[in-house]
């Protein structure tokens, strides 16, 4: 898909995607980033010692999924210049999370598009809100 800034509109939604973490996927993620915090793999410890209801889905993993909304949307037609997110509420193994976003500002002079991004839980609550700034390449004139 190729983006043309002239066809974008404020309020346009970005494609949503569902993420369901498993024991295996959390193991892979925490091994890849070398994170040995027990709340991400040791269920007994997480429930009995840290009072969570289940193993915790890493906040930065949700941040990655959130950034992918912008990265996948812009693809090879631009770049993600910056983004931020805030982990407001924990998510747990068994939760199905939905990532998504929408356009909040378009600057046709610079080619920059400001995005509102989110991770939403199964109850419909946004647990990780964020923002992204992408720069879209100019289309070659015919």
């Amino acid at each position, binding site marked *: 898909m190729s983006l043309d800034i002239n066809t974008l509109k404020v309020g346009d939604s970005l494609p949503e995607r569902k*993420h369901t973490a498993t024991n295996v*996927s959390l193991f*892979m*993620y925490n*091994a*890849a*980033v*070398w*994170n*040995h*915090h*027990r*709340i991400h793999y*040791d269920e007994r*410890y997480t429930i009995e*010692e*840290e009072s969570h209801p289940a193993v*915790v889905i*890493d*906040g*930065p*993993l949700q*941040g*990655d*999924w959130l*950034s*992918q909304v912008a*990265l*996948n949307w812009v*693809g090879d037609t631009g*770049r*993600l*210049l*910056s*983004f*931020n*997110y*805030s*982990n407001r509420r*924990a998510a747990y193994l068994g939760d199905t999370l939905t990532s998504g976003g929408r356009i909040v500002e378009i600057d046709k002079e610079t080619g920059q598009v400001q995005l509102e991004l989110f991770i939403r839980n199964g109850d419909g609550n946004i647990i990780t809100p964020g923002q992204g700034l992408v720069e879209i390449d100019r289309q070659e004139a015919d």
Partner: protein
Amino acid sequence: MGLLTAQHTAWIGHEDPAIHVEITRRDIQKYSAATEQQQARYLKGDEAPPMFVFNLFSAIPQLADLRQDGLARSTTGGPSLPLKRTMAGGTEVRQHRPIRPGDVLTGTRKIVDMFEKQGASGPLIFTVRSLRVVDAADRLVLEEIQTGISR
């Protein structure tokens, strides 16, 4: 409230020793598989997704240096806080150029703020750290602000 003392907040401004990391295609591929990336450049390891830097510039502790919760006792370069249960709070990332295999990067982390808030289930301590990543030519690659929460 009032959990943070002058001894704690004296750590604001503390900078960890710089950490040097050689980026490999295989490490990018592992990260990309674990995070279900969809862009070919990430899955092939040609380029790292921006969140690849999470924890990349933290010291690697020995097993004997881990606390009961599995986190490092002494390698994070910060004060021992009165609230021990920690969680990630959020991140801001500004990427200046993509990270690619073969890059030799230097990351420097610094405590830039510490503050308290009252949460729904008790007090919270926020520790804000900056990360500045440069390449072998000392060109800026990425800047990050990361917030950790102790509860």
